[in-house]
């Protein structure tokens, strides 16, 4: 999948976008743990972040994600538009 980092998560990860390989079926929380393994500084925002999977919000919980190659998963720190 393609992981997109925004705002503070991009600063912490030091990258804005990267491709990573993950199991096709994985819970949101497991995916987060996989991402934190690559970018440990992201633990700083662990409890105030959500995903957007194919542009739909997903909480970091036990929800099972079915991912396909090329799917976008975005790391969404607290938003502040407007």
């Amino acid at each position, binding site marked *: 999948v393609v992981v997109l980092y925004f705002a503070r998560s991009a600063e912490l990860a030091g990258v804005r976008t990267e491709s990573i390989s993950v199991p096709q079926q994985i819970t949101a929380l497991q995916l987060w743990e996989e991402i934190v393994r690559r970018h440990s500084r992201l633990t700083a925002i662990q*409890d105030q972040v959500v995903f957007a999977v194919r542009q739909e919000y997903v909480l970091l919980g036990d929800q099972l994600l079915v991912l396909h190659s090329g799917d976008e998963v975005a790391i969404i720190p*607290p*938003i502040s538009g*407007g």
Partner: protein
Amino acid sequence: MNESKDEQKDFIKLDNEKLSTDEVSKLVISPCCGAMSLFVGTTRNNFDGKKVIHLEYEAYAPMAEAEIKKICRDIRQKWPSVKHIAVHHRLGLVPISEASVIIAISSPHRVESLDAVKYCINTLKATVPIWKKEIYEEEYSWKENKECFWANTEK
């Protein structure tokens, strides 16, 4: 009147250009509408006593547009008489006193456009993936809308 059967339109724009209230209001004006309400979010020169130099916005642009479209759909369900909706959000660097967001909504009578504009900005702050970085003289801060449910800010 034929005019009132014209298609309702949503105008959504996210880019680095300076925003204009005249431009946005011209998009939504309609001869069958007696009311147009606008909200303009501008950059403030201070936060908690700190002097703000400027702001920088970034967006997950395709999703932000999709979320704004969802808000437009919600508005049309809640206030079916609403005619046109325009939501322009500026990205990148925004100097003090310039607009970061302009929302304009027209409707035949005023209550719908007034209430829909309020709903639109409140919901935008809660759901649209856009981020604001306030740049002070010697530091910066990523802001968090209090409407964002996964933020940890005291509410």
